């Protein structure tokens, strides 16, 4: 039976194994590759997307759980890549290899959505599920402050 949801506002209907993680539906079936695989066990956050506004590790989230919901990926976060988090990221040249950054940005955007002025401890709590092997953490922290409108 087809599973229906919206992806970046576009209606989706996919007749796939309901246990297939949302990540692989997004990447292999819908063809949006901005969301990345990193661990397959919700350990690294590279695959973070928004499901009805909440940050979700799509590698460990069965597509059936997204039925009827609204899924947003990095491609749909803003119309022109101009979400304040994306802009702050570029102003501070946060990325190194860039691979984890989709997930970092999606997690940060969700954090600021519910907490517009997070403290350092709140940033650490929200962002610690997202690994960056290049080690961009100190710039990520500054970029979140900047996107929040504070000093960076």
């Amino acid at each position, binding site marked *: 039976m087809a599973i229906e949801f919206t992806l970046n506002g576009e209606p989706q209907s996919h007749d796939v*194994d309901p246990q*297939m*993680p949302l990540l*692989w539906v997004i*990447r*292999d*079936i819908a*063809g*949006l*590759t*901005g*969301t*990345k*695989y*990193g*661990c*397959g*066990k919700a*350990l*690294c956050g*590279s695959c973070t997307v928004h499901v009805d506004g909440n940050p979700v590790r799509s590698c460990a989230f069965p597509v059936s759980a997204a039925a009827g919901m609204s899924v947003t*990926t*990095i*491609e749909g976060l803003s119309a022109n*890549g101009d979400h304040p988090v*994306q802009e702050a*990221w*570029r102003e501070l*040249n*946060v*990325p*190194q*290899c*860039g*691979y*984890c*950054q*989709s997930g970092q*940005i999606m997690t940060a955007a969700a954090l600021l959505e519910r907490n517009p002025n997070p403290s*350092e401890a709140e*940033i*650490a*709590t929200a*962002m*610690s*599920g*997202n*690994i*960056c*092997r*290049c*080690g*961009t*953490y*100190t*710039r*990520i*922290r500054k970029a979140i402050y900047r996107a929040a409108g504070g000093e960076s």
Partner: protein
Amino acid sequence: MSGFEKLSRREFLQTTGIASGGLVFAMTLGYPRSAAGASNVAPSVYVNIRDDDVVEIYCHRSEMGQGIRTSLPQVIADELEADWDRIELLQAPGDAKYGDQNTDGSTSIRKHFDLLRTAGASAREMLIAAAAMEWGMPAAELVARNHAIHHEASGRSAAYGDLVASAAELEVPEDVTFKDPADYRYIGKPMDLIDGVAMTTGAGIYGTDTVLPGMLYASVERCPVFGGTVKSVDDAKALKVAGVEQVVQMPDGTSPPGYNPLGGVAVLASNTWSAEQGRKALAIEWETGLNAEYDSASYRQQLVDTSHKEGKTVMNRGDVNAAFGTADRVIEADYYAPHLSHAPMEPPAASAMMHEDGSVEIWAATQDPQSIQGTVAALLGIDKTQVKINVTLLGGAFGRKSKADFSAEAAWLAKKTGKPVKVSWSREDDIRHGYYHTVSAQYLKGALDDEGNTTAWLHRSVFPSIGSTFSAEATGPANFELGLGMIDNPYAVPNMRLESGDAKAHVRIGWLRSVCNIYHAFAVCSFADELAHEAAADPRDYLLRLAGSPRKVNPADDGAEYSNYGQSLDVHPIDTARYAAVIRKVSDMAGWGRNLPDGHGLGISVHRSFLSTVGAVAEVRVDGEGKLHVEELWIAIDAGLVVNPDRVAAQMEGAGIFGMSLALHGEITAKDGVIEQGNYDTYPVIRMSEAPKAINVHIMDVDAPPGGVGEPGVPPVAPAIVNAYFAATGKRVRELPLKKAGLV
């Protein structure tokens, strides 16, 4: 650097290491350079100027986070006087015409700076010559400025694009004149990332993102023990999994492994998930082979035992034994560091498709496209020229993606199935089937006189060699490995002997960001701190004492073979004055000697690698439960000239975190030949919650040719943390990672 520098074609070819004379300049990008009315001109393989005024720059180095796709065009565009907004960066495919493309050894700038400058300057001079010809003016009266040639006296000018047709009729100049560094417009400037938009919008294409028409997604089950083979496979259940299309047994791995695939069984499906589900349904019986007895705990004891016996002397100065005999005090220490996995965020991934003419085309996250050409050509029985490599962005690499094995898997499967194939390694595949950073045991012995001076230094290093991956005869450290942080010891100790001891490999050994410098710096910089405390001296002051008088150290003076990262010691000396300057700077940055809260400690470590010297100071806090927290890091780097200071700072910040990961958490172990870790739960790396509140970076202002940047930040981090922990607690830890001592 002073004034104009001239470089003849002969010198250029020597400098760049491109041996076959005439190769570089004769090559074009496939466009006819001499055709009348040409719409483009390609003065070298790196630059193509189009008549729409766009300058195409070919990046022949792989982007893996070091920022080379920004720094490389900075150099070319600067010498070319190109407008940054009118350049188009293209990623070069794998092709020997580009020269060395192997993006390792922190070489992209340090070995290619003059080549890139020459590529820009030769294009600039051709455009000047073209304008001179068109206008009938002496070239000497013309200048290139901001994407146009100008005749200042008359005010005449022409955009680069308008000079293409004339330039195409000219020979590429043999001698070029470099710009005065005072006129640099991009070199030395913190240019924004060229890929900033792609990397923040999900548009960047990595190895795992390739989509080819009718492509199969492959997941490969490999023998859990290195060197094992498939005895039998039952694929009936796997083939019943929805989406699974084929199950294919891979060719067995080779001995030595080289870059060849490891063998195993591939499941090919219509999507990644189905391939993985099919793989789980395979029933495979393995012939595990000799390495099934590998137990890293008992192996460790072998390494330590070897390090306690006299080894092969690779450098000797004075007479250490005599000095130990007359010493006031003698101290000894054993250091141990385990195997590490690269664990880049993007596990190995590559795609391949066969073309009708028998050639194969590959899209890969690779540091070394030309090695894929060689490996795949041999595996498929075709010529290298029939292997086309498209280089994607690399989602981290750290040395893992220098190896062609995963690309070769994709190519072999594409040929076998006749369909395009993408091979994606899972995280568990990555961590269990890597080319591991080697495991090492080191023994150090030092002598102090009654004034606390170090009078003798004995250092033995024992580890299985990277060479074992390529030769069964490589049963001990190679000279090049000992040259990474051991032989190049800069300390002014009158009696010094350096020895190596053999060790057999039981897993594939590879190079990981800064390679042997990781464990050599850990031992050398820890032991320097131990000597300082034994001498009741301040560790920073003692480091300056060890550095000694300003001088240039040549390990050959003491009988060592030392390659200095393939570059001349005259140009890139082991300069103790620069070393001492880094000690002073980084300690000043950290406020060395200041009062610290209870439970805090500062530790310092300075290490030269890849022709750059990096100093690190760590401030640690030890909490009431004895756990260690890295509060802040200070890093100073002397890399000579730097092209993009923001990327250099970013590399130091990243090295701080990478160094913390290996210091606190990193450990790969084996039991019965099987790697015991598999994902970020069992192989943890530093997360935001553990990141220091700041990583403060200073780039030394030094008038010297560029050194490496990607790797040299890593080695001093672990010893700085260990030394800081000693300062905070009086306890010395001589084993990595620190979690083994219960500190994490």
